[in-house]
């Protein structure tokens, strides 16, 4: 039976069937932590920190009985959400810069425009997905993270991506540069201003 620490405090637990996994332990603890708006964030097994994305990885599947020591670190949902928000805001900045580069490449006919365009397109999708996840979290944990509901921008962003896809298919690089520079970029700026504190 390994020793289990939660935020550096040893805790008691029961592994009745002697075949429980780390995933089951974490799941049980997350349930108890939910009321405190906290969840397990990091894990170290036998002195080794688990890599990012450990919940879906090999570590989660290990049997408790095979481990000597498990150290779990929690974080608050709010802290986590703020980190997420900062990342999204920073990512919007990066997308803005990439739009500028992409527009310049399109205007001068540089082949690098293609790579920059993919970064912008995929980046916008990631931003929407992340904002959606954060928005779901604010409802579940009753937090106030945004100045304005991000969902209001999902539809305009989606429409803009659709426009961009169609313009790209038409081969009109001038129009594509225009939509990126004068429509998508200002929309992302507006989201940054209006949605985030």
């Amino acid at each position: 039976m390994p020793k289990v620490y939660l935020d550096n405090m040893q805790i008691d637990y029961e592994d009745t069937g002697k075949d429980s996994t780390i995933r089951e332990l974490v799941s049980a603890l997350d349930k108890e932590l939910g009321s405190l708006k906290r969840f397990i964030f990091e894990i170290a097994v036998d002195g080794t920190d688990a890599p990012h994305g450990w919940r879906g990885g090999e570590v989660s599947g290990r049997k408790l009985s095979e481990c000597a020591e498990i150290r779990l670190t929690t974080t608050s949902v709010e802290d986590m959400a703020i980190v997420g928000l900062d990342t999204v805001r920073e990512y919007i900045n990066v997308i803005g810069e990439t739009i500028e580069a992409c527009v310049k490449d399109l205007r001068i006919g540089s082949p690098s425009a293609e790579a920059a365009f993919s970064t912008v397109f995929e980046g916008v999708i990631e931003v929407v997905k992340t904002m959606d996840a954060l928005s779901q979290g604010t409802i579940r944990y009753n937090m106030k993270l945004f100045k304005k509901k991000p969902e209001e921008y999902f539809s305009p962003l989606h429409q803009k991506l659709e426009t961009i896809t169609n313009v790209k298919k038409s081969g009109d690089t001038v129009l594509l540069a225009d939509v990126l520079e004068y429509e998508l970029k200002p929309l992302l700026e507006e989201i940054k201003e209006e949605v985030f504190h």
Partner: protein
Amino acid sequence: MTVFEKNLRNIASKDPAIFEGLENCQGVEIEEAKAGGATFRYKGIYFHSRYNPATEADVQAVEMAGKKPDWVFLFGLGCGHLLSALVQKGFKKVIVFEPSTEILKGALENIDLSPVFDEEKVFLAVDMHSAIERLRGETEGFDNLLVYSTAPYKSVFPKELSDFTNRIHNAHITNQVGIKTDMKSRSAWIDNYLSNLKSLPFAPPIDVLRDRFKGVPMIIAGAGPSLRKNGELLREFKGKALIVAAITSYKPLLKLGVVPDFVIASEMVDLPEYFTFGEDDKKTRLILGELSHPGMFERDVKGKFVFFSPYLSLSATHAGLWGSSYFPAIGGSVTTAALDMGIMFGCNPITFVGQDLSFGENETHAPGGVYVAQNVRIDKENGLISVEDEYINDKQTYTYKLQWLKGLSGKPVPSKYDWATFHQWFENYMHYLKKERPGVRVINATEGGAYIEGMEHTTLRRVLETCVNKELPLDAAIDGAVASRPRIDYTSLEASFRDTAAVLSRVNRLAASILKEAAEAKNIYAKKGLTSALKGNIDRIKRLEESIFDESDRAKFIWEALINNTYALKEYLKEDMDDSAGEGGQFLRDLEAVIGSYKSMTAVCLRFAKRFDEAAASIRAARGSEENRGIAAGL
């Protein structure tokens, strides 16, 4: 005054033909961009930003500025935003080609482009020929040319852009080749002309044959690999058409059983290996340039004719004194000159054979000539072509930059820069001919190789069946023309050589004085640096230079003899100045350049003053011989 009229006034002052064909065409619909300025859609796509076309053009102009072009060849005028941005950034040497009359009409009707076209060196072209003509007239081989097009033009006019880029590239190479030829050949040309003075009294000018062959079919044979395919048929033309062979095709033609009526050559080097030194040579006549190697005038042939070229002002000035008023248009090869001569003779139709202008399967020339064995390897990846051949008994390997021309089958054929240059010349010449002499048919019956726009393309058999039908008294016509040769003006020729020799002596003295002043200036600079003490020397150098320019107006030949220095000076002036050297360093560099130039000038003057005195004596002797011959003949 409408916008269109305003544009018309400005642009038409440089090229009135621009507006031909615009009257009945519908212009594109111009839209106002959100931040001002015009845009439009054509073939479903926007050609300028709908928001801010000026900013968009600025981005493009900045990109172009980084390449530091001397001349910009802009494919696509559009609404003129990029052109304006370029001019604003100081790029005022621009040749714009607009491939679409609809776009041009829309732009000229709605946008006032007169301020940019007011610039002296900003030109508009609506056909590629005019754009190339501008390149020829305005740019030099030294110039850094930039061909640029915006993405919409690339997308809508890909073939036109590719053609435009190739033509500009080829025309620029022609300019560069011209410089190389100048630098390599001019001095030898002068020597050849002076050495040929003794032969010219015995070689009538080619224009004695002017209009002597009206309506006579002419065959011009190049030595392209396909020539062998025309062998049997060519024999049937003998006596029924005037057959002119490029010197490289002379022996291959003999092998095919055809003795040409004329062999044309203008090389500055002697080419004895191209002759048989047997009976065949005595059945043909040579057409030689006045600048050809003197050895060529010594060949034992049935007759010799001479043509004068406009390239050397000395002999060009003398042409009239030798009885010639004709300077053939020459595109770098003798077959190009032969075409112009054929027109002058009155021949019609004029048919080319063996004018491949491209590499064959594994050969560069028709068999039977001086190229014994050939091996051609094309490296498409690196754009190179290497040729191993055996020239008589010497094995040689050359590597050329690969160039592509449109082939007879429509597919590109591999070529090299000089052939591409000839090809371009032919197409330009055909463009001219279509306008000026529409009744003349020029046929390309070459069985392979490049397609030449403007020529009819058909088989030699078809030419034989439709254009050739009877024996013609060709020899009698030639003999009659020779007998009517105009008299040579020996007195003026002698005076011209004596005058030029005197000018050279005076220029030599002036150049020597400049060298003295420059040496003194160098000493003053070494002792006192860049001070006002140098002013006297600089002023005197300027005055002496003015005197040299005045003198040399009477002997333009000097500048031709100094062509290498002229090019070296141009290169020097184009070089980026080294700021770290400071004003003093720059002064010294300029002074060295002056010293170098005038040292060369004194050397040229000394060398040629002596030769011109000899030339005057040679002309006097020739006059004496002719007078003696006249007395002996009882004239």
